């Protein structure tokens, strides 16, 4: 059974949010959020205070919601959040342990609270503790765990009842580089090989690049973008490295007329064109001004470039 997706996971519906607004007292936190997620790994990105955690709480049914705004795995979270939570795993950012219990006891206890029989829960707790590499520390009190171990313990408790989706809130927060890589590998494995739906909320862009196929970008409670990561990196804007000889100023002036950004990086000229435009524009300008191109190469934009452009705009 290892490495295969369960029937539960294969037949699960996705998550649907339709026109969701939410405010804490007078402060608007989420505004008209709409998206649908089928499965796979999704990065939830945004600066601090952009509404990421609130959106996750809405998906968990922790917030008072109007009907038909948030639908998780076929259940309306305003009507039947408990049924949906049976198939959701949640890894909170802060705290997230129950002091006084050993690691394995805590995971088994939370398994029982998820509707598992006592013996099944204990057996599963041992399995997931092994999976997250806490097997040797399973009988230690969870308040004595290091930060890295706590993060893995929180992941274990999110997995114990074998949910269809797991929501991870800043899972690499406070981890050293080794611990961060280990937990990202686990998350990647769950999303890629084990058929889980994963929502990874973070402001660490490399984490999202390492694990996710899609991103949701939030800023001040608004959804700025929902796209596949590769599309984001290629279609939002493109930067070309250009080198050549001839009437360079004329060539640049011609391009500027068409509204592109031009900067210099040593000998290279960096030409940034908008989405939908490409190398043809540069080739046409070179031909028209007699500028001989020696180098024309598209730079691959990182997610960070795309993210910062989106949130700054």
């Amino acid at each position, binding site marked *: *059974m*290892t*490495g*295969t*997706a*369960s029937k*539960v*996971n294969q037949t699960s519906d996705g998550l649907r949010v339709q026109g969701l607004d939410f405010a*804490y*007292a007078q402060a608007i936190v989420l505004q008209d959020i709409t998206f649908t997620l089928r499965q796979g790994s999704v990065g939830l990105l945004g600066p601090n205070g952009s509404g990421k955690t609130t959106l996750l*709480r809405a998906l*968990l049914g*922790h*917030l*008072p919601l109007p009907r038909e705004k948030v639908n998780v795995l076929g259940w309306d979270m305003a009507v039947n959040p*408990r*049924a949906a*939570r*049976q198939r*959701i*795993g*949640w890894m*909170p950012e*802060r*705290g*997230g*342990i*129950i*002091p*006084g219990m050993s690691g394995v006891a805590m995971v088994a*206890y*939370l398994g*029982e*609270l*998820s*509707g*598992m*029989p*006592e*013996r*099944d829960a204990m057996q*599963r707790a041992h*399995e*997931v503790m*092994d*999976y*997250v*590499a806490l097997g040797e520390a399973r009988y230690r009190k969870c*308040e004595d765990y290091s930060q890295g171990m706590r993060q893995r313990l929180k992941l274990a*408790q999110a*997995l114990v*009842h*074998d949910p269809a989706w797991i929501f991870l809130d800043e899972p690499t927060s406070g981890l050293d580089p080794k611990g961060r890589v*280990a937990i990202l*590998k*686990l998350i*990647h*494995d*769950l999303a890629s090989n*084990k058929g889980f739906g994963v929502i990874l909320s973070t402001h660490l862009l490399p984490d999202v690049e390492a694990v996710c196929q899609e991103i949701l970008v939030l800023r001040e409670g608004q959804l700025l973008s929902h796209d596949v990561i590769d599309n984001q990196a290629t279609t939002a804007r493109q930067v070309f490295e250009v080198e050549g000889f001839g009437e360079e100023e004329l060539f640049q002036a011609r391009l500027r007329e068409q509204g592109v950004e031009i900067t210099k990086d040593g000998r290279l000229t960096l030409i940034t064109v908008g989405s939908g435009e490409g190398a043809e524009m540069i080739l046409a300008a070179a031909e028209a001004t007699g500028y001989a191109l020696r180098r024309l190469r598209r730079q691959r934009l990182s997610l960070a470039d795309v993210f910062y452009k989106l949130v700054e705009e």
Partner: protein
Amino acid sequence: MPVYERGYKHWEPSGRKALPPWWAIARRGIAGPLKRRGFLFLLMVAWVPAIVKGGILYFTFKAGQLFDAGQLVRLVGGNWASIEAPGFFAFLTWQKYFVLIFLTIVGTRLISKDRQENGLALYFARPLGLVDYVAGKVIIIMFYYFMVTLFPVYALAVFGYLVTAGATGMEMLVLIPLRATLFCSLAGLSLSLILLSLSSLGHRAVFITVGWVLIYLGSEQIANLMTLFGNRWMRIVDFPAQYFQAGALLFDANPPHPISPWGSFFVLLVYTALACLILKQRIRPVEVVS
């Protein structure tokens, strides 16, 4: 071997029956303190008054022919040797300090500990609601409350029936257990909710413990002081006394203090309603202002 290659197995349900979440909470909470030897010793000590009362009943009714039973009753006080309902009610009032000790040990950390490390978020990410959570915690407190009040009364009632050679059958086997069950259930529920509401107010168990002891003992001392100056109605501030004032109605006993038992009952209703309100406000997976 890298951790992620160790493999993840999906859960295949065994077909065993899952119990409700409140039961899981209660079971863990009850089992926890019983693992401590000191706690078990204390529990045995809490049964000493019941053993003493049982011994007095024995000597009064079974071995009375060996010496003057009336002298023994005069020596220890009428309630110790009484097999009437007020005698058992008096036994419950003697247990109030054990109630304080056990409820302090068991109850003050029940919610504060969960709040300390954002544990409530873990609970409510599961398919359980506020009622399941509070019910599980209430059962833990009530179990230990019963351990020092109701269960000794049951034992004494059966013992009393045996030493009186069945002469008190109806009273000992039905009426006294019934009265005690009703009293302990209502008082235990009210005490549990009030203690849980206190526990939900903070993260630091030490402050909650101090607050609880002040309410339980401090209110009694304040009332004692005020009644010294002739303000007898100030007994209404004595928190534990309200339970016994109201309980006197159930046991056909004389109220221990000169205030209305129905007044005490009303005060307890208000306290308990307030406790429910606090619990509803404080136990949330997320703080929502509106």
